[in-house]
C-alpha cells in the first residue's frame, strides 16, 4: 500500500532528518486493510533510525505524540484500530502534565 508519512515537531530527527517519506507497506498476511497497529510496527522497524523510545512506547506512540490520519486525530478514528488510507502525520506536541 502506497502511503505518505510526515514527521514533525522534531520527530523527523529520528528518521534521518527527513520529514516526508513516501513508502510502500506490505499488508499483513491475509488482510486487506492496514491498521495503525501494524503500521506503527512497520515504521519502528523500517523508518526510525535512532532513539525509538522517543516515538514508540509499547504498542502505541509515546505520550505527547499526535497522530493525524488524513489530517484527522487518530483518537477520533479508533486510535490503533484506525485503518489507513493514504496520508499520515506524526507530530510531537508540548504537553506539561
Amino acid at each position, binding site marked *: 500500500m502506497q502511503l505518505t508519512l510526515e514527521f514533525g515537531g522534531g520527530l523527523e530527527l529520528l528518521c534521518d532528518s527527513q520529514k516526508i517519506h513516501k513508502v510502500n507497506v506490505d499488508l499483513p498476511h491475509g488482510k486487506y486493510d492496514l491498521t495503525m497497529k501494524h503500521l506503527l510496527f512497520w515504521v519502528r522497524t523500517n523508518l526510525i533510525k535512532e532513539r525509538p523510545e522517543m516515538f514508540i512506547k509499547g504498542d502505541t506512540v509515546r505520550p505527547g505524540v499526535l497522530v*493525524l490520519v488524513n489530517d484527522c486525530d487518530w483518537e477520533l478514528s479508533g486510535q490503533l484500530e484506525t485503518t489507513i488510507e493514504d496520508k499520515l502525520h506524526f507530530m510531537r506536541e*508540548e504537553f506539561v502534565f
Partner: protein
Amino acid sequence: MEKGEAKSKKAGGPPRLCCICNERRPVLKRPKTLQQICRECFYEVFEEEIHQVIVKNRLFKSGERVAIGASGGKDSTVLAYVLSELNRRHSYGLDLFLLSIDEGITGYRDDSLETVKRNELQYGLPLQILSYKDLYGWTMDDIVKMIGLKNNCTFCGVFRRQALDRGAALLKVDKLVTGHNADDIAETVLLNILRGDIARYVYIYLFLIMLSLGYIMIHTYAYFKKLDYFSTECIYSPNAYRGFAREFIKDLERLRPRAILDIIKSGEDFRIATTTKMPEQGTCERCGYISSQKWCKACVLLEGLNRGLPKMGIGRARGGVNGGDHKKETKAGSTVKSLESKQCGSLDF
C-alpha cells in the same frame, strides 16, 4: 479532502460533529477537555486561549513597541502570526515588528532569514535584521575560522543574547517577545545550575502561556495553518553542550513526564547559600551593557578575538581584563570548569 459525514450518529455512538460549532467534522481531540473539535474551532480556541493569557497577565499596554524575536523557526513563526492576528482582532494597539539576528552562518542563517523575509510579507509585520557583523564586527563563520569548532557556541550564545537586547534598545522597543518552549527553558535552567550561573534570568512569553494552559498545540496549529517556517539544526551545533542537556532532559521526561516542569520550578526556587557572594549588576566600561564585571562578556570575548587570543573569556576568569577577584562559590562551582565553555546549540532564541 473533507469526506462527507452526512449520516446522523448512531445511538450511543461517538459524536460526529464538532462539539463547539456543531457544523463541521471534528479533526482533533482537545487534550484537557477531550472535546472533539473541527479545524476552524481549533484555530479559534488556540488563539482565544493565548488572548486570555495575554489579557489576564496584562502582558502589554496599548501603544507599546513590541519586537518579536524571529528566528524563522516554528515557535517564533506561530507566535508572530498569532500575535499579529490578536493585535488586529482585539485592538491591542501594539506597534509590532519582527526582529531577526543574522549570526553570519552561511547556509543556515541565510535560509532561515529568507523565511523571516517571507513572514514579513505574509503577516504584514516590518522586519529589522541585525547582524553580528554590524554589532560586533565578526560573523560566526569568521569566528569559527579563527577558533575552530570547540568554543564557538559560547561566542554565539553570548553575542546572540546581547544582540536581541541591544537590538531592542537600539530600536527603542518596550517589550521583547520570543518563542522559547518548555524544553528550551528547562535546558537553560539546567545549564545555568551546572555552570553555577545563578544570576541569569529567563523571561519568555510562550512558556508563560504554556504554564497557564498546561499545554500548547503549537505544532498542530502550524501544520494545519500551513505556516511558513524553517527547521533545521545549526550546522555548528553538534558539538554544543546544550545538546547534552537536551538529551538528559528527554531521558528524564521519558521516565517522569513532569520532570521538565519541575526543573523549571526548581530554577525559580533555587536557593543560594547566604555565604555566597552574588555578582552585582553594573555596566560594562567598554560598551555600557549590563554587566557584573568591569567588562561585559561580549566585550571580553571580542577583545580576545581582536587580539588573536580567542581563549580569553572562555573558562574561569584568570587575570585578564576582569582580574581574578570575582568568585562564585556555589555548590556546582568545583565541577563546572570543563563545562563552562559550551553554551548553546538550539535553533530558536
